[in-house]
């Protein structure tokens, strides 16, 4: 089974927790086994939001996860990037995992959002989707849906191409 890791930042923005639960639901639906790596406070917010673990079954501490992380541990990295520290964490996870990655960049301040977006762009080859968001998770949810849909289509195309090549040879 494919494995995905959702990287949560500081839970200061109210949009983060509902979107984390939503992203876990979407990725599970796409066939991924999902783990959520976060700080203890972000973990507690997810625990209260999903008490029976319908959406998020695997919750791990971001620090211990990073210590033990190795290339190839996950097939997909989804990072919530809403702070300078979150950019550093996402870029670090990206460089260790070397896997397909998506940065979900958001902030209420456009200048900061663009700075985070540019830093991720300059230092990774990850897909990036962004929106000005703080209280309202909808703009980000819409962009996340689009980004995951695009990823799913591209995965399907790659699989078909691989299949065609195998059949040809």
């Amino acid at each position, binding site marked *: 089974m494919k494995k995905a890791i959702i990287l949560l930042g500081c839970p200061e923005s109210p949009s983060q927790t509902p979107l984390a639960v939503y992203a876990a639901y979407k990725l599970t639906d796409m066939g991924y086994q999902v783990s959520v790596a976060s700080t203890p*406070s972000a973990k507690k917010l997810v625990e209260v939001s999903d008490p029976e673990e319908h959406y998020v079954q695997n919750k791990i501490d971001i620090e211990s996860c990073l210590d033990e*992380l190795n290339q190839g541990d996950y097939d997909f990295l989804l990072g919530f990037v809403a702070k300078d520290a979150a950019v*550093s964490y996402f870029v670090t996870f990206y*460089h260790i995992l070397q896997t397909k990655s998506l940065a979900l960049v958001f902030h209420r301040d456009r200048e900061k959002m663009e700075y985070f977006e540019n830093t991720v762009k300059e*230092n990774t080859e990850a897909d990036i989707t962004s929106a000005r968001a703080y209280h309202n998770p909808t703009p980000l949810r819409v962009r996340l849906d689009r980004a995951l849909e695009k990823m799913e289509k591209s995965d399907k195309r790659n699989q078909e191409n691989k299949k065609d090549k195998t059949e040809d040879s």
Partner: protein
Amino acid sequence: MFCLDIYLQESEDYEIHMTRAGFKDCARFIEDNAPEVVHVKPGEKIVGARIIGVPPVPIGINEEKGTIMIPYTKPCYGTATVEIPVPPEEREKIRAVKI
């Protein structure tokens, strides 16, 4: 083995030069103030902890004081620049992983 997290919890023998800053500012501080600067990949294990940041991550080395200066990032508190004394073999290990 030297462990950074335990050292910061149990010792007072370290210096914090910047705190709650952005990674870029902390990196610039190290570049400008350390007598020797070594660059490493993000995720590299330095003194027992994975180094977090944007590549190339600068680590300052001061042979005279026997210290290293590193960016230290926490999700809610941003990045700090911390200077800690480390044994000579740890300084050599850092030089060995430079990029």
